[in-house]
């Protein structure tokens, strides 16, 4: 039981949650304004083409209308902005999570469901559970932070691993030797895509590579150090190549991969940059009234070191 607890809720720095919020919540803006923009036009689609989803029926979310989707957009933008600045982390975070559940399920309620948002939805629902977290909380380790981070990681590897299982369920064990990639490259040609699509042996090799990597993705939960970074680099390269060949980016999943990184170290990078610019200022003091900045600088350094 203790091993399970320390695996699912390791004590991790609160600062990592604070940094992850600074990545995830701004990404929500990118998501609703650039990636999942369907809900706004869906507000004009006659209801007979609305198919709904179980989650929308369970939560009483109505078929989208012209005004509804615009109000929802404002709610999401405001709540994610508040949460990104670390204010009202629980309230703003949960409002943003429910708003995004409505928004993304709207996008998928017309017979086309993507699976790139699972980890992001998990992240949006678990990040508020941590409560207050500052990027200065580098040495304040918490199980609540560890569980939230772990859930985002589990969400990300679930997408990869279950993608492989779905290929076995729907495509069969011969999936990797088939022409699925050629099909995709034919429908969405981009960059070197058509050249790749004209080499069936190459497409088979790529399909085998992806399938094996997806099956092995849960290993990410146990990897550390360079092995972890190498695996993350592989997945970053994979997503970059699908974007180059097919214009499919999976960014909502990619941002969740940041949960595997020691983001709390960004604080010391920031302090070093600030310290360097402060030293430069002392060497070349500005003319005019003398401002004593010694009070501010040691305080920042002290807090980082002692917390």
């Amino acid at each position, binding site marked *: 039981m*203790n091993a*399970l*607890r*320390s695996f*699912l809720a390791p*004590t991790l720095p609160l600062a990592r949650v604070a940094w992850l919020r600074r990545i995830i919540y701004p990404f929500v803006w990118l998501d609703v304004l650039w990636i999942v923009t*369907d809900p706004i*036009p*869906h507000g*004009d*689609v*006659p*209801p*007979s*083409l*609305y*198919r709904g*989803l*179980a*989650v929308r029926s369970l939560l009483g979310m109505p*078929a989208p209308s012209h005004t509804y989707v615009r109000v929802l957009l404002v709610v999401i933008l405001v709540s994610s902005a508040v949460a990104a600045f670390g204010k009202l982390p629980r309230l703003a975070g949960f409002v943003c999570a429910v708003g995004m559940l409505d928004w*993304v*399920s709207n996008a*998928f309620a*017309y*017979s*086309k*469901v993507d*699976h*790139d948002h*699972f980890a992001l*939805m*998990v992240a949006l629902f678990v990040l508020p*559970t941590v409560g207050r977290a500052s990027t200065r909380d580098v*040495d*304040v*380790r*918490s*199980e*609540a932070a560890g*569980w939230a981070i772990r*859930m985002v990681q*589990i*969400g990300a590897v*679930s997408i990869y691993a*279950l993608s492989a*299982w*779905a*290929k076995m*369920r*729907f*495509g069969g064990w011969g*999936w990797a*030797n*088939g*022409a*699925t990639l050629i*099909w995709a490259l*034919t*429908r969405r040609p981009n960059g070197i895509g058509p050249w790749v699509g004209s080499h069936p042996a190459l497409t088979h090799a790529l399909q085998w590579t992806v399938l094996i990597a997806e099956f092995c993705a849960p290993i990410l939960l146990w990897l550390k150090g360079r092995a972890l970074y190498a695996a993350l680099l592989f997945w970053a390269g994979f997503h970059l190549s699908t974007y180059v060949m097919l214009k499919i980016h999976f960014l909502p999943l990619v941002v969740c991969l940041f949960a595997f990184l020691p983001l709390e170290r960004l604080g010391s990078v920031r302090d070093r940059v600030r310290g360097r610019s402060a030293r430069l200022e002392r060497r070349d003091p500005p003319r005019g009234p003398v401002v004593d900045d010694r009070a501010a600088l040691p305080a920042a350094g002290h807090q980082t070191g002692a917390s």
Partner: protein
Amino acid sequence: MGAMTGAGSRSLPWYAVGWRLVVTFAVVVTVALGTLVGNDGWWPFAPMSQYAFSVKNDGVINSLTMDALTVDGEVVRVPLSKEKIGIERSEIEGQAPRIVNNPGLLQDVAVLHRRRLPDEAAYRTIWLRNTQRDIRTRSETVLTLATWNVVDPLDPQPSGIPQDAR
């Protein structure tokens, strides 16, 4: 339990650990079941099934398109995208069996077109078509799956077909 590792460590009380373990178990089991036995209706626990289908090396690639005869007498390609008409080709593909059963759903496409692109010529007739491309020979065959003569093309009203109609 190993949670208290220093002055800066914050352990959770037993009930807080308890509900987190229950949530973790529920999420992992549901998402796994979603892919193993579920369907798209289970979202966010739906099967991770994008590109999971198999295409035979000597098979055909289906591409769905929609064409329309405008009130100006011109045949145009219906711009199936969220930026233009407001619904994606993939969404129409997902509803293609419904549209074949109820061609009246194409009336709603005409309504959407008037709402979203009012400056374009209105649609008088709409065709749902499928282009089959042979991977080996690269030859193409176009099939018309459904045809609809729009009721009142300049001011079309929604079909009113129920959402649960298949």
